């Protein structure tokens, strides 16, 4: 499996990270190094093995279905780059 610059561009887009066109070949090359390393996994016989979902066998605890938190909008917004009138503010999303 080899990654070309188009695939690198697509992955960057999916990850929502801007990568300039001139940086794409180097990025694709790094991906190929890493994926080449990962490729070893294809040698392993995994027939009949279930993918691991949790490393320690335990049941998730349940709690009472009650409200335990809330009513602190100032704290929630305290670190926002742009907060107005009790809301997070972002650029226009609909025309």
């Amino acid at each position, binding site marked *: 499996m080899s990654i070309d610059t188009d695939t690198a561009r697509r992955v960057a887009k999916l990850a929502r*990270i801007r990568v300039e066109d001139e940086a794409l070949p180097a990025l694709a090359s790094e991906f190929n190094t890493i994926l080449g390393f990962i490729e070893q996994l294809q040698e392993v016989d995994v027939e009949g093995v279930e993918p691991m979902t949790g490393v320690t066998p335990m049941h998730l605890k349940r709690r009472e279905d009650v409200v335990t938190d809330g009513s602190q909008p100032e704290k929630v917004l305290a670190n*926002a780059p742009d907060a107005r009138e009790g809301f997070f503010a*972002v650029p226009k999303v609909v025309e």
Partner: protein
Amino acid sequence: MTELTKLTIAGARDALRRGEITSTELTDALNAAVDGGDKLNAYAHKTPEIAARQAEAADARLKAGDAPDLCGIPLGIKDLFCTEGTASQAASRILDGFKPQYESTVTTQLFRDGAVMLGKLNMDEFAMGSSNETSAYGAAVNPWRGEDGVDLTPGGSSGGSAAAVAADLCLGATGTDTGGSIRQPAAFTGITGIKPTYGRCSRFGIIAFASSLDQAGPMTRDVRDAAIMLRAMSGHDPKDSTSADIAVPDFEAMLTGDIRGKVIGIPREYHVDGMPGEIEALWTRGTEMLRDAGALIRDISLPHTKYALPAYYVIAPAEASSNLARYDGVRFGHRAKLAQGDGITEMYEKTRAEGFGPEVQRRIMVGTYVLSAGFYDAYYNRARKVRALIKRDFDQVFAEGVDAILTPATPSSAFGLGAMKDADPVQMYLNDVFTVTVNLAGLPGISVPAGLDHKGLPLGLQLIGRPWEEGDLLNTAYALEQAAGFVSKPEKWW
């Protein structure tokens, strides 16, 4: 009396309780040492006012009697832990200015016991790195130096924690370990570091990297201090559903040094190609030390060891790509300046390109790729199956009566800052070849300093234990520590 900054946690605790010193004196001495250690770049954010306040409160508690072990003990906190009102930015530009409105459970418990926070410690960005060089603060520097005087890495990702403990800029520090990030820096700086069983410490309030692998743990001058600090950090937390509701024993009380009859496994697959002869020799010496202490040595096989790093470099980036999706410039941290006409997608893309460093970007994108349609089965599901096999390898040797496994901690001693600059990313990943299996299997692992190499730099040995048996593991480590008698300290140059 030993110089205040050089005290162990146990030594300081006893002196505080006897009234020979006060936490305020101790904290003043450490604050001064922190200020004098700027060349090491171990602290990213110093908090002397908080420390002074906590020390005063601790002194009052000590005076009243019945103070917990950590009461009045000055610690450093890795920048990955959210500390209320104090910058916590995972050494990333994307969390520039972020001051959490809440406290991580681990630091809550440390402060409950009266610990004093000296500051936030440098690390690799989002704990992704093995040399501290991916930090937005610049690399922390190892207090140890070779004969040539070149600046060395303290390892990573908990490099600031390791440098601070080794250079006497705190009595102990918190670290986190996703693939070796406590144990490798501990080995590079001649200190002790334990990653407990997955689920032992709550992950609440620890900035997430790879949630199925991340665990917090202590980094200390010796095994006893690790036992003391781990006890305070451990325990069930309703805010982390993966934290185990299992009683936390008094680990320190389990340090008898008696390991007669314990079965120590020596895994043949850890003899990797190109391993320096010094590391092999150290491993052999460690094996002999444990045998001399009465342990039974057994050759064992962990056949899937070779596939641990490749599996890790699918699973960890996959989880990271999901966890780090939250950094979008909306709720906290950095937001890029936008150009006329830029919409929300441009905001995300520019913010993340500016905020994340190259290694973090690389891992997010690798994770995105292995989770994308068409590759999920071939990479991600296959890696999770291999992970199950790696865990099964350990389950089998433990079922056959092995109590602990001895391996080297790292494939080399500390290397020069900048030495890996032109290497491909995979070369750096190989640092974790001995430690990463332990995270994949969720086991406890501890690095104990065991000797010096020909350059005079510390080397560590790793012991791997059964799940939830950190007490037994610490005791084996204690026996190894006593036999190794490692007392070297870096010569002060900073």
